[in-house]
């Protein structure tokens, strides 16, 4: 179901213009999480452009993006797919009770060496 308000919000939040995409696929070819993704960076661009957002919101792909910005850096058209992935993920985790990572999940991640940076970063990406 196409939700024009959500589409508009995602474009505004991310600042991305998916119409600039020329579908070369370099973003997905650069993606270090490609093999673990159901929808790849180029599909985020085309699906948001087409208003086909619901499948993205339900996809595990949202939690596989590393925000390493390889896709954004290597895009010959400056589309920055990583920002769209982030916008869709935020649209999901901003919903009531939709935090992907919860405080009670943390003890299982801990070992003697894990840097604080790992935990604060994961919370930034997976929880609101």
């Amino acid at each position: 179901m196409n939700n024009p308000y959500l589409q508009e919000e995602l474009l505004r939040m991310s600042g991305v213009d998916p119409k600039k995409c020329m579908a070369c696929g370099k973003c997905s070819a650069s993606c270090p999480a490609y093999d673990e993704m159901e929808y790849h960076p180029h599909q985020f661009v085309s699906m948001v452009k087409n208003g086909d957002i619901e499948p993205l919101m339900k996809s595990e792909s949202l939690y596989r993006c590393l925000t390493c910005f390889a896709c954004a850096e290597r895009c010959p058209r400056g589309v920055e797919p990583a920002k769209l992935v982030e916008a869709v993920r935020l649209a999901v985790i901003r919903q009531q009770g939709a935090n992907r990572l919860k405080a009670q999940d943390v003890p299982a991640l801990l070992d003697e060496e894990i840097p604080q940076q790992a935990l604060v970063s994961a919370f930034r990406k997976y929880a609101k």
Partner: protein
Amino acid sequence: MKVSYFPGCTLKNKAKALDEYARRSAEALGVTLEEIENWQCCGGVFTTARDEVATKLSSVRILKAAQEKEQPLVTVCSACHNVVKQTNHAMQTDREFADKVNRYMAEEAPYNGETEIYHYLELLRDVIGFDALKEKVVNPLKGKKIAAYYGCLLLRPSGVMKMDDPENPSIIEDLIRALGAEPVIYANRNECCGGYILAESPALAKKNSNAVVENAKAAGAEMIITACPLCRYNLVKNGADIPVVYFTELLAEALGVKEDTNE
């Protein structure tokens, strides 16, 4: 020379070596790192959404603290640098965002991205200079083959970070040369280790980290250096069988200040 310094959360805990060797080496080079008072964690990753304000306020406060002291701001951790620099860029270029931040902070003088921010590597290259650094080296690391691991945070997005060529960087290799060692160039030096993905998919972190280590070793590396505690953790945790150390440790060793004489 005195500069404002933001160490960040991890350098006060699991990455104390990154911090201590940075301070000691800076002193040896005539730069005092003055830690900003009452700083808060940057959050580890920059949230790219333009409507995210609260998550960027700690970075703005850090930048403003340096501005008030009329000093440039220096960071060491790759993540802190990425977050604070991207926030500063947003304050300079996104008027709507900057206005929201300034209205929220409600301080007398608005902040509009005036602070100059350097990563420690940029301090070495652009302020001190690698030639001047070379002259201060007392313990050249001769013959060591060292791989620079940039990861993602130092270089990207390059239009904002402006540290180096995002695909063919040289700043850490030039540092390695200045310290008397030999840099090893390898393809994966600017590929992501997996970062925070360990919370979701440890297998993906392992795959990416192993690819970096194997690629560096195949190019002849005996050691990997990094500026990022999470890169180091991922590489070591996933079985790196060559040493992975912070660049500041190597710097301190070459400058002859690795052992703390004050203790």
